[in-house]
């Protein structure tokens, strides 16, 4: 359909986006960068800090973009990242 969309959807508020929390175990990370590379929403990037293994672990750019696909968990060779769903009403914490 070629029309330009000018009005927000009427049921916008009803739509729920998964609220997630991304947990990084920084010192487990070996800096392979798979999670950064494969995140479909580009939630992660390489940080400047250096962890116990002497590499740059990832950093969360914008946690609200996370869709809880869980691919980072699946792809991490060192079990250094996992995502949990936030319970409703729970206060937003910065991961």
């Amino acid at each position, binding site marked *: *359909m*070629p*029309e*330009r*969309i*000018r*009005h*927000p*959807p*009427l*049921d*916008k508020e009803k*739509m729920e*986006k*998964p609220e997630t929390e991304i947990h990084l175990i920084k010192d487990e990370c070996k800096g392979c960068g798979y999670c950064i590379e*494969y*995140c*479909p*929403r580009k939630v992660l990037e390489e940080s400047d800090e250096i962890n116990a293994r002497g590499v740059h672990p990832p950093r969360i750019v914008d946690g609200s973009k996370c*869709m*809880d*696909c*869980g*691919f980072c968990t699946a792809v991490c060779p060192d079990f250094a990242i996992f995502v949990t769903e936030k319970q409703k009403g729970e206060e937003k914490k910065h991961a």
Partner: protein
Amino acid sequence: MESGRQNRLKIASRPWNGETLVEDKEDKRQAKQEEQPRIGVYVCHCGLNIAGSVDCADVAKYAATLPNVVLAQDNRYTCSDQGQAGIKKDIKEQRLNRVVVASCSPRLHEPTFRKACEDAGLNKYLFEMANIREHCSWVHLYDRESATDKAKDLVKMAVAKAALLQPAKEAEVPITRKALVIGGGVAGIQAALDLADTGYKVYMVEKEPSIGGMMARIDKTFPTMDCSICILAPKMSDVGHHPNIELLTNSEVAEVKGYIGNFHVKVLKKARYVTKDCSACGECIKVCPIVAPNEFDVGLATRHGIYTPFAQAVPSTYIIDMNLCLNKEGIITCDKCVKACDRQAINFDMKSETEEIEVGTIVVATGADVFDPSVLPNYGYGKYPNVITSLEFERLINAGGPSAGHLLRPSDKKIPKRVAFVQCVGSRSDRAGKLYCSNVCCMNTIKDSLLIKEHWPDTEIYVFYVDIRAFGKGFEDLYKRARKEGVVFIRGLPAEIRENKKTHSLWLIGENTLKREIYRLNADMAILSIGLESRKDSEMIQRLLTLSRNQDGFFLEAHPKLRPVDAATGGIFFAGCAEGPKDIKDSVTQASAAAGRAGILMAQGKVTVEAITPLPFPEKCKACGLCVKVCPYNAITLDKEKKRVEIIEAACGGCGTCAAECAFGALTQNHFTDDQINAEIDAITEKDADKKTVAFCCNWCSYAGADFAGVSRMQYPPHARIIRTMCSGRVSQKFVERAFARGAAAVLVSGCHIGDCHYINANVQTQKRVERMWKKMEQNGLNKARLQLLWASAAEGEKFASKIREMEKTVANVKPEEIEKAKQVFKKALEES
């Protein structure tokens, strides 16, 4: 068929010895006596259309003095039964072996007169027409003397060409009994069903995930207030289940090659990522994390990354929007839908594929877009939440739409008490939008106002209009009903819509032109009645199928009255809004008409193609291969061993660009031979050449554009004499040189716009040749403004007319020395022939 082709080849390579092709003994005897051309000239008055500005009797008298003319007369309507009967009688009694009719455009009546000639036993290629209406009387309405002089010249040209005409036999081409319908709106659906029910295989290509088009999005139809999707859904379902229809949704036509009866089409089937096993249970959408506005609801509702645009979609198979899906090619990061699908219908490995199909006819039913009113800042669309378009209104009032049929103000989701409709948004305006009337908006608004009254009778409704056009069957009744129900119609569009920032209510300010007073109306919601415009991608379809479009962007029919659903390109037909804005009833009517027209071709199973293929003279051929290079159809091959070229006639499109390229005169085009065109040039330049322009026009665009200038009575000076060729690619440098060598003041070469050429790209050669000529003229110190190149489409009559006006100065200012110099420079052109 094969033998027919060979037969024609034989005839073509045999030098003309005065024999016609008639087989009967009796006719052969007659043919022997016809070694000398015996031309009959008929000058038509066309009522006062021609006689009003041309002295037809004088033209006929003049024609009688021309060489080979044995009979010349003027009559009121040559195309009438009596007129035709007269020609037939003269062919038999006066033993005419050539006929010239000076009347309207050959694009209109050439087939009529050719048929009359054939009926009387004369080969139809022995007929020639002089266009003294569209190219003469209608464009020189107030200059009887010049118009008469020009008409004489045009007749002289036709007679000169007629004397050299040769009979030809047309090849027959078989027609594939399959059809392609482009576009799955109501027009495409109707055309496809009609063709499929007749028994032909139909391919329907739709670029959206579902068929249904614009009608599926509308709530009710006027004037009967039927539920739109309720009457459309069964038809959509019929298309989906019809054994003769192959439905290709989410697909686009990528390439079209071939010609009438034999189109080779490549269709790009984009990956859907959901297989036909999908049962449309909807489990996948529950788990899909992606949310986006649903385009089908103009963004007023949401959909997921995997979705179906609407409940009645055909096919009902879901689709994954890969632009939004978390998964990218080769990497599946999110498999929630895959896990939710019981039938394992989701396949992320699906690839886009190209399907090649062979069809005989094509129905173009690509529909129309709607006008985007955000370009009109005074109405605040896109800025004020409560200003919506009529299309958004349809989705809001639709029970299956985003608000379940409640007309809600987008700002606070309350039902409005006062509603204003603004008509002609994007239509009938030279300042913003399009010049034309979009045909459907008036009735659509009346229907919409009644719908509101039906659900919420207390709503105050105001319609701001320019004119209410309720012209169709039952339309006036509906209009009256709306007025009776209390809908207030106010003449005069609002100049501006302003918003109350707190309540988001609107002020409509303008002038009531009937009462001559300023109004300031408060409304809770304003609905902009937006017009229809041609599809943004119709240019692509135009190029793929070599069609023409009018100045409004809609596809141009072969004849506005008598062939309203045919394209000028054979085997292609139009249905629905692709041809012009129209309502559902008209779209369906036109679709059935298009299906009928396509059906006629396919029922016949064969079609004859014009005998306008190349005519080789092998003894002159140097096997240089230039013709092979310029042929757009690859219809010429070079046999290096035999040192000669071979022509594949069935593949030839008939542009004649090969003949124009040949430097040795080893190739010419049947029915547009070098001799015939030279004879026309000579006829023009015989007298007062220094006051005339020799104009070459291609049959499909510029000649049709000149016709359009005539039909529209655009007046231009009478210095130009038009020579018709099929393509501007036929115009050889030799012709231009000859015109100058004979003292012509100016030459105009005109054709279709680059990219729009009817013969793929033959007009690229035209450009090269003209540029070469300009260079040559410059080098020899000639004013190159005397040679003009014009690209004009069939709809650009004004462009053609203004070119002729512009060239008048050039013609008037050409000095005798300049004419003489050009004669010297190009004198070789005369020696060659």
